[in-house]
């Protein structure tokens, strides 16, 4: 059991090293001649106006809230799904009821027009 996590840890460490190697090689053998024009922000040839980190209305803010709700729900559903075969039918139906309550929440958000692009 513990060996699995040592393996995953080592896998991630080597997985980070492998992509870095070509980048380091490229740093030594590729040319490096920066100039202000080359390093300017690419906007199809037009000069940038104002700050690049612009603020604009994120229409999907409400989607993110609904997402949070459902993501937490699925975390609760994984243990239910894993032990489904050992549970009595009543508990299975209770899990379905739990899904139903969240569907009711989705329907509510839908009826309130939260899922429209406005």
């Amino acid at each position, binding site marked *: 059991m513990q*060996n*699995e996590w*040592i*393996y*995953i840890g*080592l*896998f*991630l460490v*080597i*997985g*980070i090293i*492998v*992509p*870095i190697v*070509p*980048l380091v*090689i*490229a*740093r030594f*053998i*590729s*040319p*490096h*001649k*920066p100039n*202000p024009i080359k*390093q*300017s*922000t*690419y*906007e199809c040839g037009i000069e*940038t106006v104002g700050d*690049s*980190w*612009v603020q604009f209305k994120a*229409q*999907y803010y409400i*989607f*993110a809230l*609904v*997402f949070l709700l*459902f*993501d937490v729900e*699925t975390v609760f*559903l*994984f243990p239910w*799904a*894993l032990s*489904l*075969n050992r549970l009595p*039918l009543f508990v*299975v*139906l209770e*899990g*379905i009821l739990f899904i139903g309550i969240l*569907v009711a929440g*989705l329907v509510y958000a*839908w009826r309130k027009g939260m*899922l429209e*692009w406005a």
Partner: protein
Amino acid sequence: MTFADFLNNPVNFIADWLTGLLTGWGLPDALATILVYVIGITVLIVFAMVLDIGLVWVERKVVARFQDRLGPNRLGPFGLIQPFADIIKLVIKEDITPAGADKVIFNIAPVLAAVSVIALWAILPLSSKIFGVDMNVALLYLVAAGALGTLAIIMAGWSSNNKYALVGAFRMVANMVSYEIPMVVVLLIPTILADTMSVQGITQAQDGLWFAILSPLGFLIFFISAIAELGRTPFDLIEAESELTAGFNVEYSGMKFGWFYASELLHAFTFGGFMAVLFFGGYGGFFGLEKVAGFGWLTNPFIEAAVFIAKAMFGYWAIMWVKYSLPRIRIDHMLAFNWKFLVPLSLVALATPAILHKVLIDLPTWQYALGMFASNVVIASGTIEILRANSRKQRKAEEKLSPQPVKN
């Protein structure tokens, strides 16, 4: 310790031999184990990278055929050496960092994009004997590692100090907060059917019957949300050449761009592999053929790995087929398609098999399979009926608004 032992269990054979060799040199057991792990992991990752180079060739050749072209055909037979030339070009190309970029995040993002894919290979079961690790929470690990790739794209878009890249990154946020829900919900279906979250367990549970037969809807939803998670057409709003030029990676050049490209291809292939594992029996699933006399060789690890790669390649090809056949959809359509169609459908597609599996499990296999399949057909036709009624209503409403055509 013979050649037959090696053929039947190559990884264990080499690992035992290496551990014996290292402890023979006087290394402590724990250190020897870790060294063997490191060697095994390096071999696995290098195999994935070599496969990735092959995928560049496959992708270019297949897209050429879809568009009625020949594709690379100059370097070597069938242009097979082309991807190696591409890599050399990427490595010796000048690496430009825009003046206003957030340099640290700008440099981390391509590495993270590659790591998110490589991490998935830790749990990918190439065969019953050749695999990284068989975790009991593999499906949760799959979701977590997938989210890392999204994070890499958001980091790249934000740190580039470019409006195109920023809009691409924001679209990726919208994409991720939507399509992860149906994906995680349908991951529960193989969990219920196999009674485990380990990928080896799920593969072995499909020996007699593929889960794609028990839950075709689950497979379809997984396929769609996997394409969305990968950010490939029709959900490639993060790149959207016609409006954002290249989206999140517009400021990247050289090998840093190369990692985004390579990790996208390998990601698509890996998801093809997970489709095979979750719904098409992975490396096995021969419907009991391997138990018939004369077909025992099917359980050889190398044959299993070849079967797995073939199935994963088919999934990869299906993703490419969708990519090069469909136009890009608008972002409000994308969100509406997810929240008003895919999420409700995935919840129904989860709840029905959960109850039916519980009720039908004691029946003979063919009745159980028929019941599960029939329930999916009923849900699918019901969904189509609802959609039809809805669009009829919409058409009527529009006809009422628009002026009636003048009759001559």
